[in-house]
């Protein structure tokens, strides 16, 4: 199949701009915790206007009729944003199974990856914005394993699990797909500016809202339906209950897609959602292999060998310290076991952590990671390049914090 140029018809584009125009009004209607757009986005143009704008609908309709779609298309092209409507050949077919598929997907990044999306099943990795180190570790390794196995990873570019899964996928050399609750060019939260760029370089950023649209509370659950719609399987790494991640799995279940969860500690708040899903029959996930087995059948799509082999650091001193750190938590004990002085031990521990062999345990001690730090595809160079990921002052982020309808704390 040849690549299909993304395009969009007038009526779909018109509808996308209508929703963007109505976004603040929808917010007025729905802005309370756990509000869902329900069937709102499935309404016809006239009904939607009637429901949301009421007496103002005539004026809005006039405004919409005055919209110069040709001009808007030029502006999109100027910004490098592709618009593909639900009638386009490039539109992800799985999304059409939604009751209210987005009329238009605005896309930034490598558009050819859209082709890959048609051929490979995607997996959504979602979870809390406040993960434990364990959740972070698992999200990273899932993203990385799936990325390396050639499975595109869908997530929402939010703080916590989302961002970690994207990072893992990038490191694994995979195709990240970020679905945003704002225009595709709007970076939210702002500290993910660099990650936003990196996703565009290797994959694609999608949104049903036109460029420049700011996020609203309602647009997060609305975005979650797109993630669930794109993915063959939705994996929740850590989630409280109730939470935005559970909204995503509700959508996935309604679509008859597979829902999976990573088991967590029963005492942990952020495991309550995932353990609940498992109790209700979600697929338990202990690693990328489990996801691949579930998607392709057991053993049909193994992880690339460099992802499974247990690797050791090349530097023998680092290898020795790593081996000791695995068994004991105290620097003193590690130093004694490796015959290094404490400064040297600390330096080795710092290096191991920087290279991703170890993670810090709460207030003291280290834990060996699943043991696959930066390796062959997409290697460490990816991480080393460019400016740091975070903007120093994500001041605006505090204003809107709607990812989980219930805050985690």
């Amino acid at each position, binding site marked *: 199949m040849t690549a299909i140029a993304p395009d969009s018809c007038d009526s779909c584009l018109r509808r996308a701009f209508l929703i963007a125009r109505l976004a603040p009004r929808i917010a007025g209607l729905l802005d309370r915790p756990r509000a869902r757009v329900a069937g709102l986005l499935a309404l016809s143009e006239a009904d939607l206007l009637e429901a949301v704008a009421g007496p103002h609908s005539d004026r809005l309709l006039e405004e919409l009729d005055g919209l110069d779609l040709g001009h808007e298309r030029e502006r999109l092209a100027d910004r490098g944003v592709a618009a593909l409507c639900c009638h386009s050949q490039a539109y992800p077919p799985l999304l059409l199974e939604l009751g209210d598929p987005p009329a238009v997907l605005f896309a930034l990044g490598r558009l050819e990856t859209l082709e890959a999306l048609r051929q490979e099943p995607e997996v959504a990795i979602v979870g809390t914005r*406040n993960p434990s180190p364990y959740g972070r570790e698992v999200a990273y390794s899932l993203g990385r394993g799936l990325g390396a196995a050639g499975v595109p990873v869908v997530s929402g570019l939010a703080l*916590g699990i989302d961002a970690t899964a994207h990072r893992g996928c990038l490191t694994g050399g995979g195709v990240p797909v970020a679905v945003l609750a704002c225009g595709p060019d709007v970076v939210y939260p702002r500290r993910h500016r660099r990650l936003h760029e990196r996703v565009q370089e290797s994959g694609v950023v999608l949104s049903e809202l036109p460029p420049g649209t700011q996020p609203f509370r309602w647009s997060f659950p609305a975005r979650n339906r797109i993630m669930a719609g794109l993915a063959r399987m939705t994996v929740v790494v850590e989630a409280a209950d109730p939470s935005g991640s559970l909204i995503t799995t509700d959508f996935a279940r309604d679509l008859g897609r597979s829902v999976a969860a990573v088991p967590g500690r029963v005492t942990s708040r952020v495991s309550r959602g995932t353990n609940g899903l498992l109790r209700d029959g979600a697929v338990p996930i202990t690693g990328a292999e489990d996801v691949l087995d579930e998607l392709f059948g057991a053993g049909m799509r193994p992880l690339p060998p460099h992802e499974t082999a247990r690797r050791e650091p090349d530097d023998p001193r680092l290898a020795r310290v790593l081996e000791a750190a695995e068994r004991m938590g105290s620097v*003193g004990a590690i130093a004694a076991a490796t015959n290094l002085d404490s400064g040297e031990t600390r330096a080795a521990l*710092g*290096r191991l*952590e*920087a290279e991703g062999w170890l993670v810090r345990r709460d207030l003291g001690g280290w834990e060996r990671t699943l043991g696959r730090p930066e390796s062959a595809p997409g290697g460490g160079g990816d991480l080393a390049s460019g400016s740091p990921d975070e903007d120093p002052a994500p001041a605006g982020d505090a204003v809107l914090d709607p990812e989980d309808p219930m805050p985690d704390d």
Partner: protein
Amino acid sequence: MRAALLNSELEFPQKRLTVNLAPAHVRKAGPSFDLAIAVGLLAASGQVPEEALGGHALCGELSLTGEIRPVRGALAAALGARRAGYRSVLVPQANAPEAALVQGIEVRGIPSLRRLADLLHGRWSADPALPSAPPESASETELDLADVRGQEDAKRALEIAAAGGHNLLMIGPPGAGKTMLARRLPGILPPPTFEEALQVTQMHSAAGIGNGKLATERPFRAPHHTISAQGLVGGGNRPMPGEITLAHRGVLFLDELPEFGRAAVDALRQPLEEGYVEIMRGQRALEFPANAMVVAACNRCPCARGADACSCTSVELARYRRRLSGPLLDRIDLVCQVDQVPALQLVGSERQAQPPSVEIRERVMRARERQQARLSGTGALCNGDMDGRLTRRKVQLDAALTAGVLAARDRLNLSGRGHDRVLRVARTIADLDGREHLRDTDLDEALSYRLEDGEALAA
């Protein structure tokens, strides 16, 4: 007053008396004014020649028998008298050696009111007091790091903290020796300069905890965690220096940091940033110096057991961690472990010679010299004093190291501040090693001392 005069074979004037303590808006309290008031009375009633009083400042408490009793703050009084232009200050005999530490003013110790009157009449003379005998030198440091077995990690961290003036957090179970280690920090810090010692002695004298001798060691203060904000930073109706001021030029140790009141810890923020405490009292603001290194300690978790025996739920852990966070953690550059040392190891390590504190102090002082040379003209004295901008200006990295730091920052989700902290500590590690250029191992080591900060948790 009356009894004191009569018992000194002097007369109490049988007239209407007005004692005016000007300026009126300064709050005055305490017994140190007794002597000046008594001498005022004597002069007013012609019992001592008025002209003999010129140039003398007075301070002391009178007993009923006419003896002059020691007071708090004699050193501060002598400093104040010198500043006000007096050429001589008369203090209680017991305070004389302390007050005599002030140079450029004659200090005489006076035993009794009788003797004072004789002095003013020229019937008795006292030699200017000599400053209290300076330290029995060198090994007054009884607390030697060599006494502590094991704890290599904490010792290394203490050395770095001392060398760079970094604030430190020690994590470990109770009874593992956190307090013991912290107490030994003053012994590896450079000895105070004369001016610093004078400041320390002055503050201690004002609080009435000094021994009248010039401080030879940096102070070590370890307030209990039930202390109030006022107790920590100072204040009160009659403003008293708080623990942070008493620890000026020394070490403030906060054991069980999460147990301290939120208000108390928050009150420390301004002094830690500015190096002084400001206390507002009515029309005026008082300033106390408050430039101390902070060493904090906490357990790994609320149940305080080892990582393997810990029974805390993650909710409890999260709550404990949250209590730890806050403005103080922003000022902590280093985090180290203190281990429960098994009895066997205590015996075993007896054979290895431990480096004594004096040896570590040598290294620390050399590292500080390097820093002072590099930082001259910036207002900062050591690496721990550098703010974010100064850190990035003064800690130069070559291209390879910069790339490495950025990679680590990306991977570990370091915040901007966390990044600066790593640079500061790495700079100190290189200073301790006597190198001007940083190596990757310096940065790696600094990275491992960082506290996983809240921003990283949120990212």
